[in-house]
């Protein structure tokens, strides 16, 4: 990880911001997912309008050694369209819930994108040459009169302006009754899982007309429903292992070798409730909104409303580390329940070396926790700091009492400005932070 020497924390600088400037947010532009690919060269975002925008990092310019390549738009395409379920008389939103990249095997890139009901495999390929010199066709495509052909030639490829094409290669539909919240590609790169509120299905990337149901927590009697699945992920190394989290704050690890239907977990991760903090909102804030394995596969991280927890897969009864994201909200839970903010689903992410974890908060703040130094930092994604190589100033929220200079009081936080989606470059200290409709890219300060 960069920043070695001198025991220094990373200094984050603004790099770029993408998206509309004005405060009036078009609903379709609301960013709903952010994901780097395996090399970090590509950064994909999905929005509420069903579009996917892919940014590509410029090749590093040797003369500009003080900054890494910028991310520029590489491809934009409409992944999902709004649909209508005629049986239920309900709309199916086109909002992209998740994007997951496949590792690159050839010149083309592949990603999975999903809305509430349908998963699609997209192939993104480049075209920078085109054939010229056909015998039977003119350059503009019109057919030549065969009688005018007097000589034959071999068509050759000539360079052209780069064109990036996205085409849907597979459509995995009609397998989910409830809303899909997660997709995760297996380490075998042949299968993947998709999870909705009550079921998890296993797919093969080549087969679209069948999927296997591997978890089903739907009660026979819907009246008894008290728990739903909130997130699921495959283990990064063991292709038979996956976890799923629930709205009751539990994580279940399942082994697909044990049985076809993994209703019985192999491990159950749950932290006993702290009785001193018990309130009517305890269950709601314990609901896990995101679960992510570390790159090593030894740990997993969960995000609930107020905290981030790191779990050792070998210890089920409590997390090994807990970080408070915005504990000052604990006394405001009733208001947050009233305005529905308590149901916001924040995501979390690891850095490439699993030493730092990051998650979002309100007021366009995002937080990072260094697992080694136990230090944390709060930063803000705002256009006010938009000079490149300006180091971001740490922010502080004042919980109560006297507010120091530069601190923000809890009551002046803007709960409409929430950072739900963040992503960390797999190898470098480059992070992508999504506010409502803007994508911010920050880098560490290189000297």
């Amino acid at each position, binding site marked *: 990880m960069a920043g070695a020497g001198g025991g220094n924390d990373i200094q984050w600088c603004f790099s770029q911001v993408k998206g509309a400037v004005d405060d009036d947010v078009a609903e379709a532009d609301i960013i709903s997912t952010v994901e780097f690919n395996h090399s970090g060269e590509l950064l994909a975002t999905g929005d509420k309008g069903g579009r996917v925008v892919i940014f590509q990092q410029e090749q590093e310019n040797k003369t500009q050694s003080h900054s890494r390549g910028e991310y520029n738009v590489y491809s934009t395409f409409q992944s999902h369209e709004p649909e209508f379920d005629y049986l239920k*008389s*309900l709309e199916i939103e086109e909002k992209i819930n998740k994007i997951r990249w496949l590792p690159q095997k050839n010149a083309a890139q592949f990603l999975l994108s999903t809305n509430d009901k349908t998963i699609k495999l997209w192939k993104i390929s480049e075209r920078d040459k085109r054939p010229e010199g056909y015998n039977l066709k003119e350059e503009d495509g019109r057919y030549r009169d065969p009688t005018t052909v007097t000589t034959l030639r071999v068509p050759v490829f000539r360079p052209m302006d780069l064109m990036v094409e996205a085409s849907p290669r597979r459509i995995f539909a009609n397998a989910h009754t409830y809303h899909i919240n997660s997709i995760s590609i297996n380490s075998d790169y042949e299968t993947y899982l998709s999870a909705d509120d009550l079921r998890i299905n296993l797919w093969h990337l080549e087969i679209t007309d069948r999927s296997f149901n591997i978890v089903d927590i739907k009660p026979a009697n819907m*009246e008894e*429903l008290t728990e739903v699945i909130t997130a699921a992920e495959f283990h990064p190394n063991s292709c038979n292992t996956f976890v799923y989290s629930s709205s009751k704050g539990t994580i279940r690890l399942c082994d697909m070798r044990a049985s076809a239907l993994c209703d019985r977990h192999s491990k159950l991760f749950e932290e006993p409730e702290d009785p001193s903090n018990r309130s*009517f909102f305890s*269950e709601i804030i314990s609901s896990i909104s995101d679960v992510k394995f570390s790159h090593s596969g030894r740990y997993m991280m969960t995000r609930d409303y107020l905290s981030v927890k790191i779990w050792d897969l070998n210890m089920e009864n409590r997390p090994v580390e807990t970080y408070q994201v915005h504990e000052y909200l604990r*006394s405001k839970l009733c208001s947050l329940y009233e305005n529905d903010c308590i149901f916001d689903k924040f995501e979390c992410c690891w850095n490439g070396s699993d030493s730092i974890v990051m998650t979002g908060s309100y007021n366009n703040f995002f937080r990072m926790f260094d697992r080694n130094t136990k230090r944390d930092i709060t930063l803000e994604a705002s256009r006010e700091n938009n000079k490149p190589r300006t180091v971001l100033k740490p922010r502080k929220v004042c919980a109560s009492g006297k507010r120091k200079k530069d601190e923000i009081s809890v009551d002046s936080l803007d709960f409409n400005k929430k950072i739900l989606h963040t992503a960390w470059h797999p190898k470098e200290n480059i992070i992508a932070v999504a506010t409502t409709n803007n994508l911010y890219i920050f880098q560490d300060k290189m000297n």
Partner: protein
Amino acid sequence: MGEEEGLHQAQLLRLIMPVETQEERGETASLLGEKQPLRCSLLCEAVAPDFHQVWNLMGTRSWEPLPLSDATLRSHDSWTCSPLVPEYRLWDPVHMFLTPVVPHWPFYNLDTMFVRGLKRKCFDGEEDIEGTLAGIKAIPSYNLQRQSLLDMSLVKLQLCHMLVEPNLCRSVLIANTVRQIQEEMTQDGTWQMINTQSTGQASVDRLVSTDILCRSSREQAEGKHVPGYSTFSKDFEGDQAQDSSETMSTASSVQAPRNLPSNVWEMENPQENKGNFQKSLDQIFETLENKTPNSVEDLFSEVDNSYYDLDTMLTGMMSNTKMGHCDGLESFSSPTTTTSSSNCKSDLNELDHIVEILVES
């Protein structure tokens, strides 16, 4: 004011009147027949996820004392009423009709994050009297807090997204919260009516939410007086009847505070026991399963008639913007039944218009 956004969400207008009874103030509960002085102020709130606002609903107000023999109107903001008559009417001189409003337990926030300023115009519209809930009671009792949380949760369960299926996770979490409150209240014995001597009946295990959520068709047939909350679960079922649920949520909310939790006002008729509550909660989840067009009919078959009256009145406002006093009373007192179904199915334009009328003054 943000009405534009608000109108396109499942918007709930709610009249909430914080009430402090003698009981609340620590005095002994009054006997039957004794009038209880009350101090009320009107708090109108738009429940939308993004903002909190206090609106003046329908412009200027005055309080109309109930036709009781020795009722006294002591000041603008207090009057007396009999604990047996849980109804108030709000006289709107602009639109010239009486709105039935039932006092509701105070909608306190457990925290003081959003300070509720109470705005209420006097009859002559001269001054705005602002005060905070602190004027009523500095720290609401735990029971009140819990009750208002329960009410808030039930309202949330009712609010459905217009055209898209509701978020199942959110619904499950809210329903679990409601169950939790219910269980605790059952253990407390809070469900029981405190003033058993008022009705002379044995105290009945009567969940407020029972009245709120559940209304079997049998009760309907018997024509019992049932609070408007009964529409809630049905609204939740009616995801497909989005327009109607929108209309219902707006209208029923105005009527909704027929929440009669305890000592001051009695339910006129005992209701079924708390088993109904669970049943109606379950119905909510069942309907997530079985969304068929037929449920629209079910939706309307079981709705409280008295709700329609208000709805008729509100939709009637559209067609006759100047309803006479008598018209208002008439339409309220004579419940319409079958025609109101079509009113409920009025489209969103009508709803927008209604709300517009409600808020523009």
